[in-house]
């Protein structure tokens, strides 16, 4: 039998393999079109509810609150997008697909990186949707084109970082239910106990202390600064350090778990 048609597994193939897996994951949206609705309608609902329900109470007017809250809601939305990474990897393990991939002469990292590239596409989509709705409701950029693009780049980088963390959760958890449980238990407090929806100064001291060390606060402050035209040097630096640290910890952990999980 001829095996001559198989290309050697080199660096170029890692990229090709990653793209093949990414394409496969994006094709899944077609089988579950509700995913697209979820990715599109949900952020809009969230944005509208927060701004019009809490806006007046928190900031005096919903218009003013929109300016404050949009960057926070954007980061919060993107913090949840990588759940698809976790659930997807978990289901692939349970269905035996990972065994098939691992028995192929392909780069082992391609299965995870392909998943993350696909989720990168979802992340960019969600960012554009949330920001677009924000503009529609009256959000105005104060930081110029450079600031806006910088904010989008930073939030995308944040989303990809969260993908590594969620990949770790998805590979470690035995069932999709426990992926959901752990994911929500960790992500939900991180997004609310941050500067996303309210000024940390208004919170009790112990919570304010937590909010100030929460990596999401740095990312939200940096995004806010870039979008509105405020101070950016410190929060952007902090954010980049956090993202680098989280990736440096969870990417190797996720890959190690991936290799070892039976």
């Amino acid at each position, binding site marked *: 039998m001829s*095996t001559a048609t198989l290309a050697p597994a080199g660096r170029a193939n890692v990229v090709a393999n990653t793209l093949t897996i990414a394409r496969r994951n994006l*094709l899944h949206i077609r089988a579950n079109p509700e995913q697209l609705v979820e990715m599109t309608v949900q952020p809009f609902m969230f944005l509208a509810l927060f701004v019009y329900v809490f806006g007046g109470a928190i900031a005096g007017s919903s218009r003013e609150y929109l300016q404050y809250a949009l960057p926070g809601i954007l980061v919060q939305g993107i913090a949840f997008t990588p759940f698809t990474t976790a659930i997807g990897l978990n289901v692939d393990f349970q269905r035996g697909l990972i065994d098939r991939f691992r028995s192929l002469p392909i780069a082992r990292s391609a299965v995870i990186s392909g998943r993350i590239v696909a989720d990168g596409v979802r992340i960019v989509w969600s960012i554009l949707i949330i920001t677009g709705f924000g503009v529609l409701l009256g959000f105005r950029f104060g930081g110029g084109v450079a600031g806006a693009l910088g904010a989008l780049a930073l939030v995308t980088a944040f989303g990809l970082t969260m993908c590594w963390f969620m990949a770790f959760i998805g590979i470690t958890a035995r069932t999709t239910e426990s992926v959901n449980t752990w994911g929500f238990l960790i992500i939900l407090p991180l997004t609310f106990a941050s500067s996303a929806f309210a000024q940390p100064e208004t919170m009790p001291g112990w919570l304010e202390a937590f909010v100030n060390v929460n990596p999401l606060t740095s990312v939200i402050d940096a995004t806010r600064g870039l979008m509105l035209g405020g101070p950016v040097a410190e929060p952007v630096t902090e954010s980049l350090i956090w993202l680098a640290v989280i990736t440096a910890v969870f990417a190797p952990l996720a890959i190690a778990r991936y290799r070892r999980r*039976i």
Partner: protein
Amino acid sequence: MTGSHRNHQLDRLVDRGWVEVKPFRSKNTTRERGAGERPVSVGAHPDHAENGNSLALSQPRGKLGGDNERERETKVTISAIEAEGLVKTFGKVRALDGIDMVAREGTVFGLLGPNGAGKTTAIRVLSTLLRPDAGRASVGGYDVVRQPKQVRRLIGLTGQYAAVDELLSGHENLYMIGRLLGLRAPQARARAAELLEAFDLADAASKLAKAYSGGMRRRLDLAASLVGRPRFLYLDEPTTGLDPKSRLALWGMIRGLVADGATVLLTTQYLEEADRLADEIVVIDHGRVIAAGTPEQLKTRVGGQVLQARPADPSDLAATERILAAFAGGEDDIYTDGQLVTVTVDDRSALGQVVRRLDDAGIVVDDLSLRRPSLDEVFLAVTGHLTQDESEPDHDPQRSRT
């Protein structure tokens, strides 16, 4: 009954040009057949009419024919898959407890054993998915621990559950594997179409796999493991959960692949399957090899003949047992299951004597037979229990079988 299905299916595959009919050589014997006789071993006793023709799946045309045949004969002595003293423990469970085995190239090697015996663990070690704790194994000359990449280039794996992506169509599943294996897009598309046709899935090519029936998923799964034309094909309980018709079709496909020179490592709980397909068998239980050889050797090892009687009146059971026991080799050779008394006998004249004694005792039987032992009896003899009756918990911790 089933034979006509197979014929029909085979004819269709031949008509489409994806399958060629040629003599099947690799099983233990080669018998001459009448001209025009169809290759149907289906439905017959395994000892009869085993070898006919076989399905040769979508090989490059130029490669078929005499060269291939000769090549296979010269390779027959090469050890394709070798394992020595494989040990793998999960916590306290020794899933593999020193497995030795040698599978020759171009044959079907059957790994037989009850649930939890270690079959799946062995397959996972040989496919580089698990590292053994001790021992060594090689596939096509490459070490599974030190040269996993080379091994992966040679193997195709079909696991216990159909590992297909349910949210992709059949074609997309195969196309994806082709691309991952480095085929260019047009080649990958062509290969996918070719395999879908060969596995009778062309009509469902663009349907999502989650809409497939169990048999269709299995076929798609097998097709996926064949995209790279692997030299070594691992089939982990490939027919579990399949209806008889799909099972027969899959057997035909497996024979065809072997006829093309592939080496198949097959695990199964179905003794009949091993008897039909395997050139050599290793029986494992509790992670150890407890018997090895060709199906014929294993049957000979049990020795003698099997005599079975079923009294028409259940109250005659004890008397029937007594009469048959007189011919049994020893205490262990008597086995009663429900109303059926089975003894292993060495004396070929036993049947006649048993008939007379039963008649003298006024016992009417529904069923009385003398035959060679089946692999079931071999299994019973070497493990002390039947596969089907396996009541132990599943030792393989790695899977929740669904």
